[in-house]
């Protein structure tokens, strides 16, 4: 319990998702999802392919637009039911305001192939946030140094291994100085021997106090690093709680099946 003057603000959850729904045509992908993430916590979102977990993550920074529901990140609150009826301009503005609060790391890295590693990192800070180029370069070099890629600053993404590209993806996200880090299956496209580097880096970030929502199949990472695990099934958060409970002693039969299948694939 914090006793600092702005205790109330600091204690408020960094992210709240209330009653968020989303359909693609006839396919109801998210059904009234609620989720709360405390400041400094890591929440692992697990679930089968097609369960809606990636869509949920993408709704948090406006890459998808929920049909209804409220998303609040670091004090920025967007009620999609009312924004949706307010026209395209208003919607764009709302999505932009959410995006300002978070940064995403993609499954397939999505680095800009026509720019060098360091240019990838400073693109957002310089072009969008209007920071000075020299200052952004300095920050970018420090971040690259930290993830062991200082010598790759002037390489192009395709000259890097998958694991290196994903670490650049993480650095690009960090350089935006977001309140919230979103990870969309960050290790799923990597060769098995490269997964470790990326997970170690993510564990370090968690230890540093970054607030993170991580969609992942890495149960061991979830068990060791996450404060909470959310199991998504058929567009609903079926079960949420500490990893020991959700992964160790699931209440729901669906969760139990899923965890068993991931732990014992054969």
């Amino acid at each position, binding site marked *: 319990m914090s006793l600092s003057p702005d205790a109330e603000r600091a204690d408020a959850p960094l992210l709240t998702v209330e009653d968020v729904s989303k359909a693609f045509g006839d396919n109801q992908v998210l059904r009234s999802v609620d989720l709360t993430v405390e400041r400094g916590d890591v929440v692992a979102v697990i679930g089968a392919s097609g369960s809606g977990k990636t869509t949920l993550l993408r709704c948090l*920074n406006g890459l998808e637009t929920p049909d209804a529901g409220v998303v609040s990140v670091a004090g920025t609150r967007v009620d999609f039911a009312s924004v949706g009826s307010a026209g395209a301009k208003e919607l764009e503005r709302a999505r*932009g305001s959410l995006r300002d609060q978070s*940064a995403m790391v*993609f499954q*397939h890295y999505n680095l800009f*192939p026509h720019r060098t590693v360091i240019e990838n990192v400073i693109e957002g800070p310089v072009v969008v946030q209007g920071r000075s180029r020299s200052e952004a370069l300095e920050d970018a070099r420090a971040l690259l140094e930290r993830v062991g890629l200082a010598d790759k600053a002037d390489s192009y*993404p*395709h000259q890097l291994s998958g694991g290196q590209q994903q670490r650049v993806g993480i650095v*690009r*996200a960090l350089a935006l100085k977001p309140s919230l880090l979103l990870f969309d299956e960050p290790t799923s496209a990597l060769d098995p021997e490269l997964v470790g580097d990326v997970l170690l880096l993510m564990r370090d970030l968690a230890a540093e106090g970054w607030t993170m929502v991580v969609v992942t199949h890495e149960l061991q990472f979830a068990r060791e690093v996450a404060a909470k695990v959310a199991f998504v099934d058929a567009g609903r958060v079926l079960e949420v709680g500490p990893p020991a409970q959700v992964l160790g002693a699931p209440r729901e039969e669906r969760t139990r099946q899923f965890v068993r299948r991931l732990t014992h694939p054969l």
Partner: protein
Amino acid sequence: MDIDWSLFWESLGPLSLAAVVGTIPLALVSFVLGMVLAVAAALMRLSKNRFVSGLARLYISVIRGTPLLVQLFVVFYGLPSIGVVINPWPSAIIALSLNVGGYAAEVVRAAILSVDKGQWEAAYMVGMNRRTALRRVILPQAARVAVPPLSNTFISLVKDTSLTSLILMSELFRKAQEIAAFTQEFMLLYVEAGLVYWVICLALSSGQLRLERRPDRHVAVA
């Protein structure tokens, strides 16, 4: 058949000059303006606004569905009858730019669509709006895809400029016609004109090849 070699060499100077001061600048200017039109039409075509995309669709359809010669004649011989008189040079540039723009628009549109969807998402993620994403992320990548087909468009354009001889442009082919009419050596002059076009296109093709083979530091073959 006797070939009048002295006439051949004597004509080569005026023909080359006509190419340098007529054909080549006409093709270059029309191509640059045409590319501006093409990018605009391609972006309009991709717009969600149905009126805007419909307008671009109509433009592309009209250009691709009518002969270039008809387009040239409408601008040069047609417009004066409604009081708009335009000289050969600007007429040729207007008609050729519109023509190239219509064809290249589809190339540019396809190139934009070929850029991975994840690139848009990454651009939005770092905070860009649509316009900045296009300018900084999408168009530079689309440009690489569009180089080979647009090189072909340019080479076709160089040859198409010969049609402007019919709206009194003094360019390579018209010069050949003039010399042929004067000397009555039709076979020689028209074959010679063809050779000059061929040489220009050979140069452009080798330039195209070099452009395409340039070590591709930007984009890995996915």
